[in-house]
């Protein structure tokens, strides 16, 4: 298995054998694609324990007593009704977080003690991996193999990573021009408001909550209304690990109500948002209009995946396929503009069509399934509208193009070839299983096209040429360039966008900055032996 030995990308290396096999070149059962979607849904082996808001260490109803349904994307049926947070609940949560920050033990305990809590949390996540993964798949529709094999371990990894930072947050001692002793203290910023999306509910929880807590902040987290369940569950584990009350508050609810309340709250010191570019603009505006709280944004993308003429076409096809179809195409950094050099273009299109056609769509709980349903009806319809627009604008539909099965939100893996740069499917974020293939003839041209977008989240480069890799890596105006790999998301690697793909970086040492204030302490130094 040459493909595996190369470890070309991280996700596949984490997935269990059965699924990995699907990513390899072994043929899949021809009938699998639509058959799986018509079977009776598999009943998830997990009990839903928490549906209320988590405020000040307790699960409570919404002040309004309202609830909203969270839906199984396989069927459109209600999984559970969840307390619906609104302005008053955000107020309660912010007050709790404010108290926990201003008077509670969390920012006042040693970093090592905070580190130990996060380490225990990581252990608990692993102990409850099966339940957490099932909940995630049920609520989101991503494959269980992915939840078990990639996302739960990555959450534990992220928590341990930031646990290790807690006691290594260093300020500088500064040589000023003058007889002054200058020290820089990095202090927690205070109450952090965090809004996470529905495509990676657990991982986005980890990316946000991990660094915020490691730095000693308290948090009010608003989850996406499509996927409130896993965050409530792991938040309860975090309390079991020893997190003091009020340090992490989780409010389920909708963007225009709960989300907006958090963004414009005067008691929130910092805001971090992951979601669409449109919503990001609103978030930034609300922050500006209220208390000028600093904001980090991780937004949309239309990331290019560039296949140079020296590429091994089979490998390039597999990686490009994965880059766009992974997680039902619901990735902000999906490689959704596939630029292929003219010399390998025809072969590439043919093979991409074959690969997409054999992609196994079905119940995400079923072994061997590669693609589950889209998150909800709205997304499902939006994607199908984009597919129609692709057809209407004259792109060549070479695979898919319709829903899969007859219920739930399944969509056929869809491939457009001969797309042009100005088409909507080549410009807008579709957020679904739609690959758009474009032909290019030279390096300068592809750089120009790849950068001709408001977005700048990520890019893939596929080449064996060192010089091409270096030139493209530097030339692309994006936050992440994956060379001969894609979707490598280790906790240590900073992630975020150029241009309208966002502001700031998550993960790595860089994410600590988001959650720290910088204080310079200056005092004269008298009769110093040296400066």
């Amino acid at each position, binding site marked *: 298995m040459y493909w595996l030995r190369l470890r070309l990308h991280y996700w596949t290396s984490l997935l269990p054998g059965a699924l990995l096999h699907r990513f390899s070149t072994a043929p899949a059962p021809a009938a699998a694609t639509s058959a799986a979607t018509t079977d009776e849904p598999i009943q998830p082996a997990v009990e839903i324990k928490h549906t209320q808001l988590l405020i000040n260490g307790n699960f409570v109803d919404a002040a309004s007593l309202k609830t909203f349904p969270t839906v199984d994307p396989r069927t459109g049926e209600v999984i559970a009704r969840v307390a619906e947070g609104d302005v008053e609940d955000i107020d309660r949560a912010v007050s709790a977080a404010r108290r926990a920050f201003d008077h509670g033990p969390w920012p006042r305990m040693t970093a090592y003690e905070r580190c130990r809590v996060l380490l225990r949390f990581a252990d608990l996540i692993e102990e409850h991996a099966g339940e957490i993964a099932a909940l995630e798949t049920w609520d989101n529709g991503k494959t269980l193999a992915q939840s078990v094999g990639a996302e739960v371990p990555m959450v534990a990894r992220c928590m341990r990573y930031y646990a290790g930072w807690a006691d290594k947050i260093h300020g500088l001692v500064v040589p000023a021009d003058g007889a002054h002793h200058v020290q820089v203290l990095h202090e927690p910023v205070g109450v952090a408001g965090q809004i996470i999306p529905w495509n990676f509910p657990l991982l986005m929880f980890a990316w946000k909550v991990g660094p915020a807590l490691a730095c000693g902040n308290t948090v009010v987290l608003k989850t996406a209304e499509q996927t409130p369940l896993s965050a409530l569950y792991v938040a309860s584990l975090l309390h079991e690990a020893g997190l003091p009350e009020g340090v992490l508050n989780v409010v389920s609810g909708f963007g225009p109500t709960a989300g907006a309340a958090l963004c414009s709250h005067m008691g929130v010191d910092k805001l971090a948002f992951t979601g669409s570019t449109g919503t990001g603009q609103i978030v930034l505006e609300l922050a500006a209009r209220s208390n000028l709280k600093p904001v980090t944004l991780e937004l949309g993308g239309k990331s290019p995946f560039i296949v140079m003429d020296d590429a091994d076409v089979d490998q390039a096809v597999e990686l490009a396929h994965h880059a766009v179809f992974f997680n039902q195409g619901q990735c902000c950094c999906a490689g959704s503009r596939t630029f292929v050099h003219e010399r390998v273009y025809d072969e590439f299109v043919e093979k991409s069509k074959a690969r997409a056609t054999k992609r196994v769509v079905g119940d995400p709980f079923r072994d061997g399934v590669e693609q589950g349903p889209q998150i909800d009806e709205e997304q499902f319809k939006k994607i199908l509208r984009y597919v129609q627009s692709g057809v209407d604008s004259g792109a060549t539909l070479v695979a898919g193009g319709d829903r899969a099965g007859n219920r739930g939100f399944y969509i056929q893996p869809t491939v457009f070839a001969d797309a042009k740069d100005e088409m909507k499917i080549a410009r807008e974020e579709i957020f679904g299983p739609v690959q758009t293939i474009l032909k290019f003839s030279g390096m300068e041209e592809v750089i120009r096209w790849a950068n001709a977008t408001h977005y700048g989240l990520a890019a893939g480069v596929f080449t064996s040429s060192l010089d091409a890799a270096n030139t493209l890596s530097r030339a692309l105006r994006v936050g992440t360039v994956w060379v001969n790999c894609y979707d490598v998301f280790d906790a240590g690697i900073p992630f975020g966008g150029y241009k309208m793909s966002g502001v700031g970086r998550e993960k790595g040492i860089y994410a600590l900055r988001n959650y720290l204030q910088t204080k310079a302490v200056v005092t004269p130094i*008298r009769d110093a032996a040296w400066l």
Partner: protein
Amino acid sequence: MAAANGSGKGFEVPKVEVKFTKLFINGNFVDAVSGKTFGTRDPRTGDVIANIAEGDKADIDLAVKAAREAFDNGPWPRMTGYERGRILHKFADLIDQHIEELAILDTVDAGKLFAIGKARDIPGAAHLLRYYAGAADKIHGETLKMAQRMHGYTLKEPVGVVGLIVPWNYPTTMFFFKVGPALAAGCAVVVKPAEQTPLSALFYAHLAKEAGVPDGVLNVVPGLGPTAGAAVASHMDVDKLSFTGSTEVGRLVMKAAAESNLKPVSLELGGKSPIVVFDDADLDMAVNLVNFATYTNKGEICVAGTRIYVQEGIYDAFVKKAAELAKKSVVGDPFNPRVTQGPQVDKDQYEKVLKYIDIGMREGATLVTGGKACGDKGYYIEPTIFTDVKDDMSIAQDEIFGPVMALMKFKTVEEVIQKANNTRYGLAAGIVTKNIDIANTVSRSIRAGAIWINCYFAFDPDAPFGGYKMSGFGKDMGMDGLEKYLQTKTVVTPLYNTPWL
């Protein structure tokens, strides 16, 4: 002072069980090639606790070979930092599960207070390991801003096979000062523990294996300095040497490194650390702090505050209170929870300390309290205070490594800075004052690697530690502590058609 020597009076000496007495090489406990053993002794009695396999050059060769193989071909340096970190976390958890047993070993082997071992030394080792477990995935290289059209970056790579020679005064702490960062960095190590205190090191080797540290990555070879220690220092296949011990031996280690393969060396050596007490200090606090700084671990600590400079305004009152407090010390069996000071580690050290006390008296210093051995067996010495000490006296210049305090009077800040720096050592210093300007000025002016203001022994995993001058070079602990186990490799390649540099 109260003599609480002996045992069985109001406390119980726990059962001492020695499980590991052989060399730990390539994941196995083995006899020495020579078949020789040496006795490790209980400083409470001078009796042999256990006979330990005595490593020699032939054993060091085997250990280095195992480490070389583990480094060159084994999984350890090829794992991700996160994977190494997971194993070190497991190692830390195992230490936490054996606190009592490990503390017993250090107490019986080194005469260290059992209660302190349980509360600080052993849990502190787990803490330090967790720190470096968390650091293993945070060893960053840098991308560079080159002045040419070049793409340049640095890789921080493990240095390779590391020789670690650790002393007997803190057998557990010193072991992890070195092993923690070396393993986190991805190195394979050969540890030579002190011949006085091999027991806990062998136990840690066992726990490391249980935690999943691959065979050959951690080798522990007890033995003597001139044989086993010298073999490590002069080995052609050891890539780096880290030594903690006396300045005299440090010099030999560095010479051996220079004469063999020029391996880089880091040394954490002796000290004669000053504590400067200013007139504005809270007297009781200062007296307590100085007592703690001098007598902790029976004065067997490289950073002991042994030159105590007290400003003239409070000098007389300080001397009186310091003597009263020293007399309250309870010298005796370190297993006794009432005891504050155990025996010196062995007969050599015991005799050396008594000799320095004798020299102090002959040189004209005034003995205020202590000055004698105590108890009818073992190596106990009374907490001792000299006043009227002059800067040039041996007891003000040499490291005694025992419970002996030298008190001196000073008038001004300038004077005391000059006096404090009047030493070939530069390991640590204490400052006791409420005045911010004095604290800042003196902190910057003293040539020492650690300055503790209104505190002492403020060690922390995140705080780098190591000496100026003849106290050594290279830092243990903190992210600095990782540096000496890393090589820096710069990688450069031309850039073509890059839109920006």
